[in-house]
């Protein structure tokens, strides 16, 4: 037993020495066992390492909720069954925040004290109004301002809903009979020509649609803002005018369409996308009287038609609504 034990210990030491030092021991069996090692193809080894590193990246990026399940041949990642909040839920939350913020902003703009709207909204007793104030006028103004607020909030809600439902088409997010309402996506200054690019169609319940709204952006082409129009407001007839004269404004320059040209390598003129030079709005007091626009073809001086007649584009389609190339004569090209 002791002899066996001693022999085993010697053999184990011999094995250890052969494997760690790599020197032949003189024992043919041990030397052959330790010195005959299968070697993998280097290409296989490198290729496998690359594949493993790729899998390691996937496994690393998997969260505990998304466990990576790998087999010898395939790798699949479980799709989480629990989904996050839907886009409509998010849209509703955004809408709520927008309405609250809008209300707060609007409220902070109302100066405290004798302002009629302040008393109407925040419940200040009517007895607090300054002596001499016209009560009927105050009530009327307060009602108008409340309507304005309601309109603004509704516009914000409708726009946010429509955007959340479908950003491309701005289709309604709720079912039921709805009517299209054109709103502006940005502020429009008094006397500014309505920019068709800054319009969007939203869908409103009929009972809250203000009177005189537009349902088609094309109907607004060539109209001017009668006053300041905030972003996301519905555009109504009362807020727009067909000419600047109607709103006591005039323009210094007629909007023109400048067909930009370029010359190609062989000298031909190439027409590029037309550029619309917007009219400059100037207060009437700053302008001479003769600076009003001149009609092109004897028609009444309608600002709606002036830029369109001066344009090479069809008169009913604004430049922003079309990408049709405009035919233009070439110059300097090779003939026949």
């Amino acid at each position: 037993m002791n002899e066996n034990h001693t022999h085993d210990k010697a053999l184990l030491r011999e094995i250890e020495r052969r494997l760690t030092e790599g020197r032949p021991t003189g024992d043919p069996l041990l030397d052959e066992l330790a010195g005959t090692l299968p070697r993998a193809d280097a290409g296989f080894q490198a290729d496998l390492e690359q594949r493993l590193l790729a899998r390691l990246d996937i496994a690393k990026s998997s969260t505990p909720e998304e466990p990576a399940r790998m087999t010898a041949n395939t790798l699949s990642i479980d799709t989480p069954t629990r989904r996050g909040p839907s886009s409509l839920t998010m849209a509703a939350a955004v809408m709520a925040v927008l309405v609250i913020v809008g209300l707060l902003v609007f409220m902070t703009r109302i100066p405290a004290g004798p302002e009629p709207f302040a008393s109407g909204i925040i419940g200040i007793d009517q007895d607090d109004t300054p002596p001499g104030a016209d009560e009927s006028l105050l009530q009327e103004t307060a009602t108008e301002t409340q309507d304005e607020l309601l309109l603004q909030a509704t516009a914000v809600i409708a726009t946010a809903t429509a955007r959340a439902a479908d950003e491309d088409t701005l289709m309604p997010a709720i079912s039921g009979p709805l009517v299209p309402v054109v709103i502006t996506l940005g502020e429009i200054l008094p006397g500014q020509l309505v920019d068709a690019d800054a319009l969007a169609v939203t869908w409103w319940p009929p009972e809250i649609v203000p009177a005189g709204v537009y349902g088609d952006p094309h109907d607004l082409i060539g109209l001017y803002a009668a006053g300041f129009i905030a972003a996301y407001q519905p555009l109504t007839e009362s807020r727009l005018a067909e000419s600047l004269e109607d709103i006591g404004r005039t323009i210094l320059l007629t909007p023109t369409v400048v067909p930009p040209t370029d010359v190609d390598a062989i000298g031909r003129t190439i027409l590029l996308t037309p550029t619309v030079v917007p009219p400059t709005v100037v207060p009437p007091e700053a302008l001479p009287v003769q600076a009003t626009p001149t009609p092109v073809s004897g028609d009444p001086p309608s600002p709606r038609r002036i830029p369109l007649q001066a344009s090479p584009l069809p008169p009913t389609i604004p430049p922003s609504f079309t990408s049709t190339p405009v035919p233009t004569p070439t110059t300097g090209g090779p003939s026949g």
Partner: protein
Amino acid sequence: VRTTLTIQEERLLAERAPVDPAAFHQLYQHYFPRIYAYVAYRVGPAPDAEDLTAEVFVKIVEGLGRFEYRGEGALTAWIFRIAHNQVVQFYRRRSGAALPLSLDDLPDIESDLPGPDDALQRKERFERLRGLIGTLSSRRQEIVTLRFFGGLRNHEIAHVLELDERTVASHLCRGLEDLRSRYDDETGGAVPTEKRDSDREQERQS
């Protein structure tokens, strides 16, 4: 020369390899030759050895993130337990007797033995050794291949096979004795084939 990792190196590899490609590269470079050699001795043909080695490393990548280092040799034991299980599954999947192998199917062999030998001779030696090892009991086959081709120490083999370290040592010694007996029978003494051939050549020349 077989290199071994210190306990610090092994722990660092275990911790960093799941998240650090450089650490994984070191782990791969350290274990790939040993895994491949062990698997090749156990299964034989190079294509099978490559498939199994790939499966082993896929399992390693899969489990590295969850592996907890628990002392010296833990990483090596874990990796070779995966390899051992894959070999066991390979033989379970394979139905029927193994087909006779041609030398072309065998993997290339690396040799540090003195004396001239070409690739073909090394492959013949590899196949002969495989045949000898195959005569042992399955337990001793496993221990001998893990020790000589996987490069595991006895306590690591004990971890892999869930045996006592002394049992591993005993199986290893008894297995080598059996091998030596058969080896001597085959070679006509304790002289390797290549050496015997060269001796005969020298005798003929003298």
